[in-house]
């Protein structure tokens, strides 16, 4: 038990302090992310360059504005989006290891993108996938793919009830989708295949400034929907039956949370490719850090913590002191898998989320 009062100060202060500490951490990691890379930029260079780009060294300004800032912003978006999507899925499926990548939601959006990109060669001749219109196309395709997958998984979960079976099905469906994508690649034209391969190699750094104009509003919409669904998610903590008996409108609740999860997971997969394990890990870290399971608290908390974790992952992937950069997905997997194993062991002791 944490003491609820300390030196006469009300608990509310600590509640604020918890999130303020995280926000400070977010700013620090954001700056660190801007500074690190193949060309080191010092703190004294980066801060003035951010606020007065015209007065700064043009090379530094260009590095910051063309590359580092979009990448850091993408990392913040990806971390927040994947973590909140994971939190919602863990609550809805009442499964501590649910996440967009595990249940095949990310593969669903890959399939959407694959169908769009590989058929784009025939339908929209000459359209660049990296233009604004192309970005919207990709992201819409990813949403639809993720949404379809979400509906499929929920239908199966309702029939099966058993958590582990649902996870295995998610993995099976992911494999099936990869196979379908493989077949699509085989039949597609050389140029669209090339665009698709480039897309699959996506990383935090590959997001263009044009794409950011799509990514940021999309993620913001998803997060807003998540905020709106926090009461529904609280009721889901006790299971669907209790939620129903408390008068929850199941249809609205599912619609809102599915839309939110699909938009969040779909958008990130569309622009950054698959990034594993962040969505599973961060909600658990947030519950531990905030000592809470209520979503009015967890959703903002998970959002900020997710952004911090993703920025940290990006910093690690740049291997400070070396010239190379690791793929972000490898970093999150290597750090994430031991944590998932820890969660499974914790869960044996403690029961569900």
């Amino acid at each position: 038990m944490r003491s609820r009062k300390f030196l006469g100060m009300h608990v509310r202060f600590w509640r604020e302090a918890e999130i303020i500490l995280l926000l400070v951490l977010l700013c620090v990691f954001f700056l660190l992310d801007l500074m690190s890379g193949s060309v080191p930029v010092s703190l004294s260079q980066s801060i003035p360059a951010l606020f007065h780009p015209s007065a700064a060294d043009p090379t530094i300004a260009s590095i910051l504005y063309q590359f580092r800032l979009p990448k850091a912003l993408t990392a913040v978006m990806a971390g927040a989006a994947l973590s909140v999507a994971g939190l919602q899925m863990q609550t809805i499926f009442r499964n501590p290891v649910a996440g967009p990548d595990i249940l095949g939601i990310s593969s669903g959006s890959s399939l959407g993108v694959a169908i769009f990109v590989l058929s784009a060669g025939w339908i929209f001749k000459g359209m660049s996938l990296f233009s604004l219109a192309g970005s919207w196309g990709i992201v819409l395709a990813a949403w639809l793919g993720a949404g379809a997958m979400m509906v499929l998984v929920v239908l199966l979960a309702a029939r099966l009830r058993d958590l582990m079976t649902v996870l295995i099905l998610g993995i099976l469906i992911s494999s099936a989708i990869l196979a379908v994508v493989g077949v699509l690649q085989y039949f597609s034209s050389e140029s669209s295949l090339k665009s698709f391969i480039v897309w699959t190699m996506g990383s935090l750094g590959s997001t263009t400034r044009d794409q950011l104009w799509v990514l940021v509003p999309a993620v913001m919409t998803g997060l807003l929907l998540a905020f709106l669904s926090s009461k529904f998610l609280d009721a889901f903590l006790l299971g669907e039956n209790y939620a129903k008996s408390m008068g929850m409108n199941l249809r609205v609740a599912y619609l809102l949370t599915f839309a939110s999860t699909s938009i969040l997971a779909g958008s990130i997969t569309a622009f950054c490719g698959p990034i594993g394990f962040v969505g599973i890990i961060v909600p658990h870290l947030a519950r531990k850090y905030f000592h809470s399971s209520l979503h009015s608290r967890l959703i903002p908390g998970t959002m900020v913590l997710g952004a911090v974790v993703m920025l940290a992952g990006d910093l690690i992937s740049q291997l400070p002191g070396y010239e190379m950069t690791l793929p972000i997905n490898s970093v999150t997997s290597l750090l994430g898998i031991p944590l998932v194993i820890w969660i499974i062991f914790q869960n044996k002791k403690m029961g569900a989320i």
Partner: protein
Amino acid sequence: MVEDRYLFCKGLSIGYQDRITPSVVVKSNLTIRALRGEMVALLGGNGVGKSTLLRTLAGFQLPLSGELWIHNKPAAEYRADELAREMSFVSTEVVRVAHLTVRELVGLGRYPYTNWFGELNEKDREIISKAIRDVGLSGYEDRQVSRISDGERQRAMIARALAQDTRILVLDEPTAFLDISNKYEIVRILHQLVKEQGKCIIFSTHDLHTALSMADRIWLMLDGEVVEGIPEEIAEKGYFDSLFPGNPQLKFDVDKGDFTFSKNRTGTVRLSASGSTRRMAVKALERLGFEIVEEETDRIAIPKNTAPKITNLPVDSALLSKILSNDLQPVEMNVTQTEQGWSLHLPGFTAEVETLEELCRTIKLLTLPQES
């Protein structure tokens, strides 16, 4: 009268239906009711449809046909959030959520009353505190739901239902998996809620004794029909005997208010003892399968015979086999309390023992088959 009637079913059929398979009727033509300030116990064997009925009442599944009235409106006319203000539900599911305090859990019960973001106002907080007090969990507000005992968790779930502030509370086996002390505590809390707040509490249970002593009304689900009435009437009319049609050895004892397992009778015994010793002896002899035919507290004359006499225990097996080879059957026995302890007489056999335990053991040995 209508105001008083919180729940009413007429010709209700319950079961499962979906678009693909033909509907499965679990029970049909149910006519039952539950009134204000009543504790209603739903009894029935496993698989007879208790949970299906409770799920139908709580609105988790639709009735196949018939009428279901909640308070003064047909259930079908309620919106989900309206129904949640009339009826709350506690299921058998064990809720294990880490990092959720008792206060937060109970607070979820305010769901039908709070705004879109679930924010609690001063009135909500008061109702939550009262619900926690009502189930005797004061001081547990900040404890984690995953770290309290099963009995405390069940009380917290009841507090959550109370916070929903409904006329009707439906509980599916609220005392299952609990020890006697926790069981008693739950039933006491429910009884108090009925008495002090006039709630209507419907609960399913396998604990016949509790149901008969605490419930105002019983819904007894039998194989073919559902019988409704006050406990005494249901017991007196012998409905409980048909509760377990597959097991004719289970007989309901109206006086004891519970089932007794009728054993094959070994024999009869004339018992001579008094006071609490006699009570103990009667129970022990009945347990061993004997019927007490004569209950006299005076000494009865001990028939003299030339039978072998055992005065020491343990009875050695050689002597025992000797007894049994005489085809000695303890069909009719005399058991007498003496100054030294107990004496046991049956035709051809006499034993003097010091304690009741030794007496039981001697009778047991007489009735056991011989070791091969």
